[in-house]
């Protein structure tokens, strides 16, 4: 018959892993199958590391938003700056590379906060709406619809006008429009899980409703939400940059990617690098997170599994 089938091939001892670990491992395996996604993951990881570790290498005299020193504008457009400023200088004489590093941290941190707040609020409301349903559920969903209908820019402008012009107000503005999406997603997932027999089994046995909700339904429905959140980070950064570019919310000296682009528009003929470099980084972040999110979505697609 088959070659080499004469001895019994022993099965490896069964590995005792929790289903989450097994799923994560399999997910990682699937992710590695797509080269583009791998590149995206690599880029995202690289950028995140840069944002976290980079600031320790930024020279002490580089101004951040709080204390700055106006440098000489004569350095602008000077091609012979050399290694002191590998990416050039901005309109205030600050080193571009240092600014980029600080801005990465700022942007990604802000985006993380936005998505984080959105997730927490969205999950709380969505799970309640899905599991309890009825009139409360309907009410929650209608409120969600209202927030979904908010036009983003106008809303952000309004918030910035009412609150102080700062990063925090931007974060609040963006968080308020991001949670509705998550509410809808997780409500859908909860409804699906609710219909599964194991929930009925738990009810039959007499487990309390809140316990079924928190300890059983939520852990089983959270995965698609995480995928969406990852995709959203890229989108939020884009939106943040757009808003700051338009001048909403931030003062010109804050190291933020959109702000840097905005500052650079005046000097576009002298030194186009002022725009292109921050612009490139904006693209890089959102692209990489989008690819990661895409990869995760593919991983979740049941047709591609096993």
């Amino acid at each position, binding site marked *: *018959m*088959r070659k080499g089938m004469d001895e019994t091939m*022993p099965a490896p001892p069964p590995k005792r892993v929790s289903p989450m670990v097994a799923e994560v491992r399999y997910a990682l395996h699937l992710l590695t199958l797509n080269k583009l996604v791998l590149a995206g993951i690599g880029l995202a990881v690289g950028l995140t590391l840069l944002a976290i570790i980079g600031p320790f290498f930024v020279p002490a005299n580089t101004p951040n938003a709080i204390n700055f020193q106006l440098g000489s504008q004569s350095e602008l457009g000077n091609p012979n700056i050399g290694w002191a400023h590998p990416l050039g200088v901005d309109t205030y004489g600050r080193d571009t590379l240092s600014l980029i590093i600080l801005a990465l941290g700022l942007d990604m941190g802000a985006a993380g906060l936005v998505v984080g707040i959105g997730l927490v609020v969205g999950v709380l409301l969505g799970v309640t709406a899905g599991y309890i349903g009825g009139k409360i559920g309907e009410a929650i969903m209608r409120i969600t619809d209202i927030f979904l209908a908010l036009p983003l820019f106008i809303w952000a402008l309004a918030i910035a006008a009412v609150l102080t012009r700062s990063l925090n107000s931007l974060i609040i503005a963006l968080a308020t429009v991001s949670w509705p999406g998550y509410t809808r997603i997780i409500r859908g997932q909860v409804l699906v899980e609710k219909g599964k027999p194991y929930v009925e089994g738990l009810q039959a046995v007499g487990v309390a409703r809140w316990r079924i909700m928190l300890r059983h339904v939520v852990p089983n429905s959270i995965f698609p939400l995480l995928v969406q959140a990852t995709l959203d980070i890229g989108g939020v950064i884009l939106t943040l940059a757009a808003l700051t570019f338009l001048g909403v919310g931030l003062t010109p000296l804050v190291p933020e990617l959109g702000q840097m682009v905005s500052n650079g528009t005046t000097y576009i003929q002298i030194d186009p690098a002022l725009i292109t470099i921050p612009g490139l980084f904006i693209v890089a972040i959102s692209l990489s997170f989008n690819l990661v999110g895409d990869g995760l979505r593919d991983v979740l697609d049941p047709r591609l599994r096993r």
Partner: protein
Amino acid sequence: MGQATEEVLSKKDNQARPVLDIKGLMVDFTTYAGVVKALDGVILDVKKGEALGLVGESGCGKSVTAATIEGLLPDNAHVVGGEVLLGEDDLLKKSKSDMRKIRVNDVAIVFQDPMTFLNPVLTIGTQLTEVIDMEEGIVDKEALKVLEEEGKPKPPTTGGNASGKPWKPTRSLRKKALRRLATQALSKVGLPDPDRIFDEYPHELSGGMRQRCMIAMAIARNPVLFIADEITTALDVTMQAQILDLLRALRRDFESSILIITHDLGVVASICDKVSVMYAGSVVETADIREIFANPLHPYTQGLLKAVPKVMGEKELDSIPGSVPDLIYPPAGCRFHPRCQYAWDLCAKEKPPHIETAPRHWVECHLYKEMKTSG
């Protein structure tokens, strides 16, 4: 071949080459968890006009066998040995485009779930006529018949028309002809009011009716082999009875060979001539229908028959201890030996050969010796 066997064979019209002859088919699947050795030397055959029941539990490989015959294996499957002969051709050696033609013309398959097979956005009529239209000339012939019945003048069938080209029916004539052929096919499968069903969408029909539509599409081309893959499993018992009646009638009228895949021994008993029992990737026993129920030889077949509730008021069901093996790390030798009460050391070392132990009764088990042939 012994004289006794020859006599028996000559009585039926079966000594000709079988319609389907699978010899030692071996198929592997590459998966994340390892290589699944799904088929380990499948041997079976279907003769002309015969209904073979392929019986086995989940994981035995019966659906993989059907997929291999149809050329529908997924990308991670590899055929590592054996032949699948349809008449004289080895289907394994055919190209993808050849297999597509074969799927349409020669080997039809009907699945368990008609909803995945039928396109939900097209009417039954559209889908059925698409299949019918694949056969060359059939529409033209029917169109001629229509013209005749309507008393219109028949176009010249040879020599072509004024521009020298052969005659082709007009579009409306084609539509009429196709519709007639389709409604004929629908009534052949016992659907009442075929004219109305022609214009309906799959979701407007019940499960049983959809199943009949699928059968109509399958037999529309008069295939030489018809594979029914668990087609009654999802149906209620009364609907199942109707479908089985239909299959019996079709066999009578069309003499096509049928391969019925099922796990239900009752279905097998009610419609098949011959049964092949599969376990973990090979056919462990093949015999005529009465023989296999009256005299099962392989321990697995015996266990299976004892485990089935037979509505006879039996008190306890005998179950087979253990469970189906993991095909990534299958048992060595005979794959059934860990669960077999008669197993001894040879069973763990060598896979038993596929031998004929009695006339037209084949078993893969070390307990039995080859039938002695006279002369």
